[in-house]
C-alpha cells in the first residue's frame, strides 16, 4: 500500500486521505513538513489563525528496523518566531504514523466555536471527536487517560495547559515506550495545536508494517550502520552520562552561559553535571541508560528517581539542566528534575521557559537561584494562566519586553540555548542564520569547536566558522528528513561507513538510487525552501543577527565578545 497524506480540516470537521503529490514523494520528516508549510501556508498568516497549518511527518526510514530512526517532525509557522518551524522528537509516534502508511498528517482550519476535539488515526483514516474530560489537564493525566480509553499500545501526541492557553513556549508531547513523554519542544507548536482546538491525537497502527523494497540489502546496510553507531565512543558516553555529560566540558571551555548570560562558568557546575547525575541515578535505583524509542542503540535518555527512589523524570537533557541550572544559578539536580517534570506536564519548552526565568530574575521578578519560587510560579502562575504566568510562558523575549530588560538572549525571539556564542563562535553563526531562530541542533558546531569530533576548530576564532555552520546546517536538514536521531552525526562525522550505509538503507527502503550528493542537495534545497518562506514572511538579513549585548559585554573567563560583522554573517547564504 502506497503511503498517503492524511488531511484534517478543523473548520468544517472533515477528513480526507490523499495520494502523495509527485514532488513530495522524496521528502520525509523536516523536508516534508517544510515543503508542505511553504506550499500551503501563506507566509504572512497569523500563526494562531485559521490559515496556519500543523503538519506531522515521520522520517523516511521511520517505522523500519533501521537503528535510531524513530524521530517525528512537526512543522508550522511558529507563534514564537514568526518563521517557518520544524521541531522533532523521539517517542513512539513516528513509528506509528509510518506503519499506518501516513506520510504526513496535515491539520488545517480552525473550529468556529469553543469546543475542544481529539483526533484518532488508524490505517483507515482519521476520526474527529469532541473532547471535554481532559481539557485543562496536564500531559501525564492525558496519556494515562487516553491509554485507558484505547490501549497502552497506541502512540499519543498531546498538549498540556500551555498549549491550550496558546503560550508561545508551548510544546507538543510525544508518548515514549514507557508512557512518559518526550517533546516536540521548540517554537511554540503546542500553541498551534491549541489554536486548532486539538487536545490529543491517538495513533493506532494495529499490525500494519512498513514495506521494504529490498529487504536483504536493507538488513545488510542496517547492520553496517548500527555497528558504526555502537562502536563510536560518543555513543558509549551518551549511554552512560546522557547529554548532560556536556555541563563540565562546556563550563571548562568558558562557554556555559551563567546568570542570564553574564558569565561563561558556573560555580555549581559539578553539582548539576552528568557525572553527578549518573551517580545519583544509580544510587537511587533509576536507569542511567534508556531509549526514547524502540530501535535506539545509543540510549542517551535515563530514568531519574527522587530521594525515595520513586520515578521523577526521564530524558532530562543537558540544555534543560543548563537552562534551569546555570542560567538561573540553581545548583540542585533534584529541584531541576522536579521542574523538568512540571514543565513536561504543563507542556512548555524547558529551554525557552528557563531562559525566560533567567531574564525575569534579572528583571527583579524573583531572585537568581530561587528554585522554590520558580516551582511555585510554574504551578501557580504558568499552569493556571495568570498574567505573570502568561508573560513567562510566552518566552524570554516576552519577559524582556514586559520588564524592560535589555540582556535578552534570543534570536528571532527564540531563546539561545546552552552555549555562549562569544566564547564558542561557530554556534553563534548557527543561532544567527538558522531558519528557525536560535537553535543549537540546526548546525551543531560544538562537535568540532569543543568536542574534537569531525575535525577541530578554535572556538574563540572566527576563521572557518561560517563554512562550518553552513556544512552542518545542510547535513542536519537532510538527517532531519530521514527520521534519524541527530546523534548519528557523531559517528557519521568520524566513521566513513556510516553515511553510505544510511544512503543504502534509503535506497533499499524505496527501491531508488540516491547518492551521497543527492542527500547533500536535499539538505540545501530544504534550507532554501525555509529561507524563502521567511523572506516572504517579512524577514531580512538584518534579522540574522545576535542581540546587541553580545557585542558590547565581554564574557568571562575569556572576556570574549561577538565580533562577526553583518557582512560576514550574510555570506552564510552563498550557496
Amino acid at each position, binding site marked *: 500500500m502506497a503511503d498517503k497524506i492524511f488531511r484534517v480540516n478543523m473548520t468544517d470537521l472533515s477528513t480526507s486521505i490523499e495520494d502523495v503529490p509527485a514532488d513530495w514523494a522524496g521528502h520525509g520528516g523536516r523536508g516534508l513538513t517544510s515543503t508542505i508549510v511553504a506550499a500551503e501556508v501563506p507566509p504572512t498568516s497569523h500563526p494562531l489563525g485559521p490559515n496556519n497549518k500543523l503538519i506531522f511527518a515521520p522520517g523516511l526510514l521511520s517505522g523500519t528496523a533501521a537503528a535510531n530512526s524513530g524521530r517525528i517532525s512537526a512543522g508550522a509557522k511558529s507563534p514564537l518566531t514568526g518563521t517557518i518551524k520544524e521541531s522533532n522528537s523521539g517517542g513512539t509516534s513516528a513509528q506509528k504514523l509510518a506503519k499506518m502508511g501516513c506520510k504526513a498528517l496535515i491539520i488545517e482550519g480552525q473550529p468556529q466555536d469553543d469546543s475542544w476535539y481529539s483526533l484518532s488515526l488508524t490505517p483507515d483514516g482519521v476520526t474527529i471527536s469532541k473532547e471535554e474530560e481532559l481539557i485543562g489537564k496536564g500531559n501525564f493525566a492525558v496519556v494515562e487517560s487516553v491509554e485507558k480509553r484505547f490501549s497502552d499500545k497506541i502512540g499519543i501526541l498531546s498538549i498540556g495547559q500551555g498549549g491550550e492557553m496558546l503560550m508561545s513556549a508551548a510544546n507538543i508531547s510525544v508518548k515514549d515506550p514507557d508512557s512518559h513523554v518526550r517533546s516536540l519542544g521548540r517554537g511554540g507548536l503546542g500553541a498551534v495545536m491549541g489554536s486548532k482546538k486539538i487536545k490529543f491525537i491517538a495513533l493506532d497502527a494495529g499490525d500494519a508494517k512498513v514495506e521494504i523494497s529490498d529487504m536483504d540489502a536493507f538488513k545488510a546496510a542496517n547492520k553496517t550502520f548500527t555497528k558504526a553507531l555502537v562502536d563510536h*565512543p*560518543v555513543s558509549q*558516553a*551518551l549511554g*552512560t*552520562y*546522557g*547529554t*548532560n*555529560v*556536556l555541563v*563540565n*566540558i562546556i563550563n*571548562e*571551555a*568558558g562557554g556555559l552561559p551563567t546568570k542570564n548570560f553574564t558569565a561563561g562558568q558556573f560555580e555549581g557546575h*559539578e553539582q548539576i553535571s*552528568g*557525572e553527578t547525575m549518573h551517580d545519583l541515578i544509580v544510587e537511587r535505583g533509576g536507569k542511567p541508560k534508556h531509549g526514547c524509542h524502540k530501535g535506539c542503540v545509543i540510549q*542517551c535518555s535515563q530514568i531519574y528517581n527522587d530521594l525515595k527512589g520513586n520515578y521523577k523524570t526521564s530524558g532530562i537533557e*543537558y*540544555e534543560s539542566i543548563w537552562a534551569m541550572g546555570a542560567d538561573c544559578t540553581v545548583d540542585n539536580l533534584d529541584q531541576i528534575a522536579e521542574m523538568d517534570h512540571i514543565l513536561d506536564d504543563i507542556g512548555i519548552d524547558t529551554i525557552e521557559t528557563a531562559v525566560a526565568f533567567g531574564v525575569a530574575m534579572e528583571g527583579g521578578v524573583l531572585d537568581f537561584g530561587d528554585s522554590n519560587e520558580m516551582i511555585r510560579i510554574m504551578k501557580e502562575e504558568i499552569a493556571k494562566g495568570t498574567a505573570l504566568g502568561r508573560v513567562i510562558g510566552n518566552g524570554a523575549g516576552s519577559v524582556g519586553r514586559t520588564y524592560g530588560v535589555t540582556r535578552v538572549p534570543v534570536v528571532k525571539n527564540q531563546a539561545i540555548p546552552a552555549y555562549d556564542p562569544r566564547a564558542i563562535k561557530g554556534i553563534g553563526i548557527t543561532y544567527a542564520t538558522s531558519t528557525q531562530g536560535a537553535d*543549537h*541542533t540546526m548546525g*551543531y558546531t*560544538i*562537535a568540532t569547536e*569543543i*568536542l*574534537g*569530533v569531525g575535525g*577541530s576548530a*578554535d*572556538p*574563540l576564532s572566527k576563521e572557518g566558522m561560517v563554512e562550518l555552520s553552513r556544512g552542518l546546517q545542510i547535513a542536519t536538514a537532510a538527517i532531519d528528513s530521514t527520521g534519524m536521531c*541527530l*546523534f548519528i552525526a*557523531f559517528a557519521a562525522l568520524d566513521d566513513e561507513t556510516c553515511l553510505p550505509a544510511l544512503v543504502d538503507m534509503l535506497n533499499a527502503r524505496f527501491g531508488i538510487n540516491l547518492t551521497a550528493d543527492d542527500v547533500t542537495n536535499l539538505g540545501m534545497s530544504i534550507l532554501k525552501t525555509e529561507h524563502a518562506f521567511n523572506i516572504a514572511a517579512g524577514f531580512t538579513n538584518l534579522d540574522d543577527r545576535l542581540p546587541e549585548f553580545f557585542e558590547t559585554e565581554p564574557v568571562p*573567563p*575569556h572576556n570574549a565578545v561577538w565580533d562577526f560583522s553583518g557582512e560576514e554573517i550574510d555570506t552564510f547564504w552563498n550557496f
Partner: protein
Amino acid sequence: MQVQVKLFAFFREGRFIKEDKELPTDTTAGQVIDDLNIDREEVGVLMLNSRHCKFDTVLQEGDIYAIFPVIGGG
C-alpha cells in the same frame, strides 16, 4: 611546579576528580596522561586554562589542566 589536574566522566573511576600535582618542569600534557595510566586513544579533549591543548603542550606553574574522554551530546 604545581599544576591542578582535573578528570572527567569515566576517567575519574579509580582515580580522582581534581588533584594538585607537583610536577617536574617541562612536563607535557601527554606525560601526565601516561602517568595516570590513561590510554591516549581514549582521550577526546585536553584543555589548559580553558583552552584546547595537545599531548605535546608543555605545562607551566599554576596551570589548570583538564582531561576528557571522547564525549558528546547536544
